[in-house]
């Protein structure tokens, strides 16, 4: 047994029931390296998305505070920026 990751390959040119239609193939070293690179990229992009969302929320809170300081009610502020 090996814990090497596998890929499920479906050959669309073959008819259903053909013995080679679906194959389970261990990933090559190059494919594993590519997968790890994609995982790293995914983590970076997830962090960027979360940071952007956090910045957006912080800006919204800051804008609300400034509008409150100007004397707007909460209903008026929500009407403006939601």
């Amino acid at each position: 047994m090996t814990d090497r990751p596998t890929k499920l390959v479906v050959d669309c040119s073959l008819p259903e029931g053909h013995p080679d239609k679906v194959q389970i193939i261990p990933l090559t070293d190059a494919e594993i390296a590519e997968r790890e690179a994609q995982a790293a990229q995914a983590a970076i992009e997830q962090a960027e998305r979360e940071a952007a969302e956090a910045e957006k929320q912080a800006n919204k809170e800051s804008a609300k505070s400034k509008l409150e300081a100007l004397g707007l009610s909460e209903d008026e502020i929500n009407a403006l920026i939601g």
Partner: protein
Amino acid sequence: MSAWTVIAHTEVGSGGAANILFSSIPQTYTDLVLVFSSRQETATGASVFINPNQLTTNQSTRYLEGDGASAASGTLSRIFTADTPSNATANTFSNSIVYMPNYAGSTNKSFSIDTVTENNATTAYQRISAGLWSVSTAISSLEIIQPSGDINQYSSATLYGITKGSSGGVTVS
């Protein structure tokens, strides 16, 4: 009326799989549709990537998203769809439909994606996305890859070929 033809269907077996690859896709249909339902073995990254022709470059996506608490929108340099993480309610699977018009043509390829993770709790993602693969080559293979861990057993993927109707339009009947 158009015709939907199952090109291939597969279900992940015991032990899971890192990738699902549909290879040698016939070039005889008008459009492609991928229907995908999955769960993954880790709690991180509730998404899988879709790589046309097994290529990871020249991809982009604009998306609108809700997670049960707030709404978000953004862009990503990958084409992606949902994958229910392992910390979601047991035995729940994501659902996705990916429409790829004119996949065999010689223009850039678009991907319309409607997807949800599933969870019997507050946090679950629902997302609509417009993906673009800025390559004019016909799509001859589609790879679904979960980089964070394996795609779990009982996840499934079905690839349909859509043949346009005599009116020239595509209508689901």
